[in-house]
């Protein structure tokens, strides 16, 4: 095994996806902080000299079951994007990354050009974003601030499609996206990186500093970005909904400190500060976030672990006009969360039990008189992981959540099974999802720029969903040709049925209330689809992958002027990677994505495809240069709708990354 500069090359195949994993490391191992356990991803040697692991799938994931499991063993659809994938994509934040990696996922804009997510027919309020398992405070137009989720020191991103409320509670209706921070084991590590992107003259500078001793581990990350406003279309274009992409600045600093009190007990303290300025036509919106937390992980015995944690997150918004703060757009969301998680294994079976307490406080300009509201939620859950046979795994979980504001509770459950019938793996699951009405949806009373009134509804019921999944997966090796290598093919179908989906409908004037729209519950929304993935990778470094997603939705609440379902979407990549000599490594790829015309009652975008060329070269010890040409066929929408590609044609970016510890 080459320990000088060795790369993992694993074939990772989730139910809905598959991709090659390249976790480049030095001598030593890459540790991934999963939130509750330390997971070690080992490597298998230089893939140029040996046969890649046949369906080794040893990547460890935690999001799907809240316990560590190798990807090949997890019975719930999971997609993993590794640190190496992030590095190759040269993505600044989670939005950039997911857009490139996942078919069926699309970020558009909403109203005041806030980001709007559509993941397989689910909006931002139905997809739960976590950082090391912790929720994020704050939202705008139902979406968290994705700019907060920068990718410096992210070890991997795990995406679980489908409902996961039986483990994660509210909002995990359409899926969970969990960013998991790396825990480095080198004595010290320093990365400095920067990127210039032609679109919007965007600059990014960042860094990541780690120290590690037997007792202490410290990691600090910094990132700064700035971009200018870009005009997309003629200012007098009356068909387009968006004319400019507004520029802005972000600053993000995070610190995580780990103290290993003993082999079995450790404490993790973390803190972070985030600031964003978004430049608009007549004002600037400022966003700030303060986060902190403390977690203890106690390995009671070889088979028992107890984790306790406290987390605080505060997300604020204010508006400035001509440099002066105006009081009419003040917003603050503060969440205090306490978790408890206990796991016990015996043999190949496991029990997981947990409870959470959250106090959610919100003051908003969207409430009457900038009022404030708060609520407390309490939940408890239990999961049993049963492996009666070597080829059969059954996971069952149930959870009850209580919300004080609506004085309602919701019970959700999940049953997931996996059959390993070599060479085929079959996964089937039912999972329940729910989303409690948010404080905004309950108490809003807002005149939106003199355009219309929006009213909350304190009588809203929790949104409920029922999710069914069936997936087939096959992996293997081709050994008898010049294209010797590994392949995987997966196909998954899913069906979701909603009760009481929370949406808005026209509201007539009554009593003291003017006409407008009001939040209501709506039944009868269905989301169903099929995902197909295929990949092939040869020993000499050539790889190809393609993913296709079909989506069908029924029910108007998924279709809005901002978020609309696209029946067909696909991504593809053809790449080549090779270590030519000690100090030179090359990675080149042509990748693309296709989105069909949305099915919508609204005037909407057409079908389009975007192609991208990536060239990544490691030119010296620890020095990597990324050159990317995006939209290489110079696509421009004729009309810029909310969900059109925000592009003005071909653009390029140049990035530089320095691993200073590798230079010495």
């Amino acid at each position: 095994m080459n320990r000088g500069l060795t790369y993992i090359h694993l074939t990772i195949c989730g139910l809905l996806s598959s991709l090659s994993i390249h976790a480049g490391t030095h001598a030593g191992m890459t540790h991934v902080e999963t939130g509750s356990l330390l997971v070690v991803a080992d490597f298998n040697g230089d893939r140029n000299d040996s046969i890649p692991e046949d369906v080794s799938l040893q990547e460890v994931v935690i999001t799907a079951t809240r316990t560590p499991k190798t990807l090949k063993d997890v019975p719930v659809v999971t997609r993993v994007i590794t640190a190496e994938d992030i590095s190759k994509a040269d993505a600044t934040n989670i939005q950039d990354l997911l857009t490139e990696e996942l078919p069926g996922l699309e970020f558009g804009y909403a109203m005041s050009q806030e980001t709007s997510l559509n993941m397989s027919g689910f909006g931002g309020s139905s997809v739960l974003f976590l950082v090391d398992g912790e929720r994020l405070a704050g939202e705008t137009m139902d979406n968290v601030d994705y700019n907060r989720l920068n990718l410096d020191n992210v070890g991997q991103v795990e995406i679980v499609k489908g409902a996961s409320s039986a483990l994660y509670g509210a909002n995990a209706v359409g899926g969970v996206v969990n960013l998991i921070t790396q825990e480095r084991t080198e004595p010290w590590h320093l990365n400095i990186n920067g990127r210039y992107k032609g679109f919007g003259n965007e600059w990014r500078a960042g860094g990541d500093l780690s120290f590690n001793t037997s007792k202490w581990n410290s990691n600090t990350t910094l990132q700064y970005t700035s971009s200018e406003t870009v005009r997309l279309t003629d200012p007098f274009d009356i068909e387009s909904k968006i004319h400019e992409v507004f520029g802005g600045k972000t600053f993000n600093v995070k610190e995580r400190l780990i103290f290993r009190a003993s082999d079995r007990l450790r404490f993790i303290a973390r803190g972070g500060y985030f600031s964003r300025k978004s430049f608009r036509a007549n004002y600037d919106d400022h966003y700030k976030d303060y986060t902190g937390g403390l977690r203890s992980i106690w390995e009671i015995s070889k088979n028992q672990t107890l984790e306790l944690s406290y987390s605080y997150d505060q997300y604020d918004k204010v508006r400035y006009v001509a440099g002066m703060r105006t009081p009419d757009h003040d917003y603050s969301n503060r969440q205090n969360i306490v978790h408890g998680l206990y796991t016990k294994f015996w043999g190949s079976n496991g029990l997981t039990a947990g409870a959470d307490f959250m106090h959610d406080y919100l003051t908003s300009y969207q409430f009457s008189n900038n009022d404030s509201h708060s609520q407390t939620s309490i939940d408890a859950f239990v999961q049993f992981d049963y492996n009666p046979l070597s080829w059969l795994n059954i996971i069952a979980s149930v959870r009850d959540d209580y919300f004080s504001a609506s004085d309602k509770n919701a019970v959700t459950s999940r049953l997931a099974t996996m059959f390993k019938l070599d060479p085929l793996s079959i996964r089937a699951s039912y999972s329940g999802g729910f989303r409690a009405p948010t404080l905004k949806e309950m108490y809003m009373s807002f005149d939106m720029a003199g355009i219309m009134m929006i009213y909350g509804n304190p009588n809203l019921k929790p949104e409920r969903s029922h999710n069914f999944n069936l997936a087939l997966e096959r992996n293997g090796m081709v050994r008898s040709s010049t294209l010797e290598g590994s392949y995987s093919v997966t196909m998954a179908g899913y069906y979701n049925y909603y009760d009481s989906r929370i949406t808005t409908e026209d509201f007539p004037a009554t009593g003291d209330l003017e006409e407008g729209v009001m939040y209501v519950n709506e039944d009868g929304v269905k989301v169903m689809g099929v995902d197909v993935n295929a990949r092939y990778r040869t020993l000499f470094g050539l790889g190809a992958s393609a993913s296709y997603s079909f989506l069908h939705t029924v029910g108007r609440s998924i279709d809005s002027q901002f978020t609309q379902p696209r029946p067909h979407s696909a991504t593809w990549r053809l790449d080549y990677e090779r270590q030519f000599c000690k100090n030179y490594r090359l990675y080149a790829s042509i990748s693309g994505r296709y989105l069909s015309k949305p099915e919508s009652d609204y005037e909407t975008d057409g079908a389009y495809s975007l192609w991208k060329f990536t060239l990544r070269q490691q030119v010296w010890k620890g020095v990597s240069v990324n050159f990317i040409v995006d939209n290489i066929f110079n696509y421009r929408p004729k009309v810029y709708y909310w969900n059109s590609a925000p592009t003005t044609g071909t653009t390029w970016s140049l990035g530089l990354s320095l691993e200073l510890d590798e230079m010495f």
Partner: protein
Amino acid sequence: MVKIKTLKKILTAIVLCFGALAIVASCSDDEKKEPEPVIDPIAPPAQNVEGSYTGNMTCTIMNQEVSFENMTFKFKATGDATVDVTIPTFSYSGYDSPVAMVIPEINVAGVKVSGEKDTYSIAETKFEGTSDAGKKYSGVLKGTSVGGQLTFNFNLTLGSMPMPMICTFTGSRKID
């Protein structure tokens, strides 16, 4: 001789008739029309654009098309090739909002004009400012004037409007 006299009478009658018609026509013009604006081919462009233009305007506001009638836009020459533009105030009550949105009078100084004979272009110009009510606004304008007929476009974002209103005005010139 008789024939000549008769011919003279006929000619005289014709001349008188035309003269009367001319007087009637002249009187009629005096009562119904403003003086025709004069396009002076050797005058600077700004002078041939200057004036008041009255006509109708169509705006796209939050995806709705709204019409406004009898609007008057003013252009004042401030140099050979620059004019000050005044967009008049107007109000809009959108969707179900109980409160009408009032767009203030907007003055944009130093807008460049170019052209010759009877065809002039008003250069695409960015503008921004603050209304008397303290609301910030910003936008872009441009236009063309052909034979005293103005087609004028402007894109305007007022305060925290989530998207700009886009308006097209067409009107005829008259000299103040």
